[in-house]
């Protein structure tokens, strides 16, 4: 049995979602010869620490009632201090990112790698904004830094390339990388409503944030385009290099006009061109997926065109990608 110790940084929707699957699949992982022990869970106000391993069932029950501080292992130590003091094999950096500086994830990842711990993250901002530096830091320390969950939620893109498309040169990658905008644009098509009304509906269902600008102005998609350009196309691209046009200007008349001519409007991240913009997609095109689905078209020299469709967000879906990285990194522990 291989024993692997973990630190989970961030216990919000994604962090708790990951913990829930780890708890649920404990026996299955044991059958694979893997025993994961969580030695620390860090949240904004403090952390739970236990060298013997934390019972995730207890933590999840407390987290549901927002009562993490009642846990017997609770301390007021902040994540950076925990990463200094507690040693583990792998750090799961699962905090939400700040689009301007990539914090707090950027600091967490640097601290973990400098402290000799592998990192798996779902946090796109630090990877998009500080890719070169973090990649170098991991390589210098002979450690792994994986971030499949940062792009496309459950859709395997980076690991698909590493595992299944090794012989291929990726020629182009483009697609729908943001579920909120796709939900809004789909509703405009299906119900003939305005962008504002579709957004209100998305807010009510919890698909859009109360301030949805990050999604509808294309910034979220742009971060993912940066990650895919650097990883899949081997470019050296910064966030500032991406030309970004969101969907704010799309009128219901434009949506209906597009339908009349056999098109739908989708917000497309075009990785090869370094561009995020609304595009006309033929109705019968594989990228014409509705609701909050994501869809990515990958064109390579040997495999040809592949279209991947799946949920780009959600706790369980994101956990699937986190686990694909976690089991991969486990081989190097």
């Amino acid at each position, binding site marked *: 049995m291989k024993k692997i110790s973990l630190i989970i940084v961030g216990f919000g929707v994604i962090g708790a979602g990951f913990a829930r699957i780890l708890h649920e699949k404990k026996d299955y992982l044991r059958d694979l010869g893997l025993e994961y022990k969580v030695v620390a869970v860090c949240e904004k106000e403090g952390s739970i620490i236990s060298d013997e391993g934390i019972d995730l069932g207890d933590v999840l029950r407390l987290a549901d009632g927002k009562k993490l501080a009642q846990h017997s292992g609770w301390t007021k130590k902040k994540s950076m201090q925990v990463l200094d003091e507690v040693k583990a094999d792998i750090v799961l950096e699962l905090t939400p990112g700040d689009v301007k500086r990539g914090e707090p994830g950027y600091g967490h990842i640097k601290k973990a790698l400098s402290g000799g711990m592998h990192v798996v993250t779902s946090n796109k901002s630090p990877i998009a904004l500080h890719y070169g530096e973090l990649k170098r830091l991991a390589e210098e320390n002979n450690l792994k830094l994986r971030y499949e969950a940062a792009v496309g939620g459950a859709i395997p893109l980076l690991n698909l390339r590493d595992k299944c498309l090794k012989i291929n040169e990726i020629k182009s990658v483009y697609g729908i990388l943001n579920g909120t905008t796709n939900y809004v644009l789909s509703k405009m098509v299906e119900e003939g409503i305005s962008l504002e009304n579709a957004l209100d509906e998305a807010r009510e269902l919890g698909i859009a944030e109360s301030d949805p600008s990050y999604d509808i102005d294309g910034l979220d998609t742009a971060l993912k385009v940066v990650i895919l350009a650097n990883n899949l196309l081997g470019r050296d691209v910064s966030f500032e290099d991406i030309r970004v046009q969101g969907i704010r*200007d799309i009128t219901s*008349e*434009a949506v209906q*006009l597009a339908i009349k001519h056999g098109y739908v409007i989708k917000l*497309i991240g075009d990785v090869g061109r370094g561009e995020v*913009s609304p*595009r006309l*997609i033929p109705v019968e095109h594989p*990228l014409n997926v509705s609701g909050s689905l994501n869809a990515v078209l990958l064109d390579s020299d040997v495999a040809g065109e592949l279209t991947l469709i799946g949920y780009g967000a959600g706790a369980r879906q994101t956990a699937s990608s986190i686990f694909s990285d976690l089991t991969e990194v486990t081989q190097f522990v």
Partner: protein
Amino acid sequence: MKVEMEMGLKDVPGSLLRSLEPISKHGGNIISVLHHRSEADDVKVKLVFQIKDLKSLQLIEKSLKQGAIKISDIIVEGRRYYEKKTISFILIGHVIDSDIRDTIDRINNIGCVSDVDVVMPDPSAKSSVLMKADIDNGDIDNVVDLIKDICEEKKLAFICCLLK
């Protein structure tokens, strides 16, 4: 090397002669000229000529384009050498009031706007206009860049079709 070239000429005196000059100048030997007049503004002309190599053809093409002559098709030794693509796009904003004629004319300098569909909910509201333009394969990026410039200048939103 046998070349069949189709082009659209302005229906004005001297335009046919101007289209033939670059061919002779770059060593082409004209075999036939077919001329088709229709209701459209342009007159379709199909030329068949012999050239020594593809370099001569490239020079002929360049000269014709510099002379604002629109080539719609080229077949070399029975194989299509050059193809036209149609791109669709939507402009949103005050498309009519910001001189739609000027927008179309500027696009026509590189390609040819072949369809325009306008939705104008009321005169003061933003209109949505879907256009289709026929463009030389090699000029698609240039046309897209041009439309982006026009949109920036006229404060219009641009939704382009997918480009490979």
